């Protein structure tokens, strides 16, 4: 895939902040800068990946080795009780957000970003050990989107060694042995 999910270290966070600010400053009449500033501020506080108390993390989706993230995912990991990793949200950069609005959507590019966020979350279970990943359907449209993903995977015969299904507002992926 041309996109990968990876950490936001300080250098990447700065590059991402600079790039996003550059994008939304060019389109102030079409975007709300404070929305992106809020996301960037939140992300800056969620990059302590080794902190023992941290359960909420920001990860970047990067395109072809770019220094800045094209999207930032919001991941939560439960450290006590039943362990799971949840992908709560995916914040797209201003330019991609604007492509929805301007009817210039690149469906394949968008698919690659989302797929990288999902598969990247699977790989994060190396760092945050669990046999369960959950994707949240925050809105009705997003839940429909997640249901479509689950249905397609089922029609393809599933994912090797995994069970995939909708539980409430979540698309849940579990190890088949779970």
């Amino acid at each position, binding site marked *: 895939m041309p996109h990968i999910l990876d950490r936001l270290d300080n250098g990447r966070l700065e590059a991402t902040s600079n790039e996003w600010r550059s994008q939304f400053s060019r389109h102030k009449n079409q975007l709300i800068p404070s929305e992106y500033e809020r996301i960037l501020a939140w992300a800056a506080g969620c990059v302590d990946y080794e902190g023992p108390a941290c359960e909420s993390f920001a990860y970047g989706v990067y395109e072809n080795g770019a220094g800045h993230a094209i999207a930032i995912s919001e991941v939560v990991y439960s450290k006590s009780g039943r362990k799971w990793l949840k992908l709560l949200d995916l914040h797209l950069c201003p330019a991609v957000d*604007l492509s*929805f*609005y301007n009817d210039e959507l690149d469906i394949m590019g968008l698919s690659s970003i989302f*797929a990288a966020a999902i598969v990247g979350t699977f790989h994060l279970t190396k760092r945050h050990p669990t046999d369960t990943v959950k994707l949240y359907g925050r809105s009705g449209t997003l839940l429909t989107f997640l249901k479509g993903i689950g249905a*397609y995977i089922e029609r393809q015969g599933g994912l*090797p060694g995994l069970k995939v299904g909708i539980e409430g507002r979540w698309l849940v992926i579990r*190890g088949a042995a779970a």
Partner: protein
Amino acid sequence: MNHEPQTIADVISGHEAEVEAIVHDAVAKSLADLGADIYKLEWANKAVAAEALAAA
């Protein structure tokens, strides 16, 4: 004895390319199936909100 369950990463190890391909196709198909509703995805709301703000 180690009673930790296998992680998702462990389970898909060796099948990464297959998993990536299926997930990518699933995302593309589901996005396409949304049709006009794709513009209602949560992520597009910041631009829509800006328009509403400008009109207020």
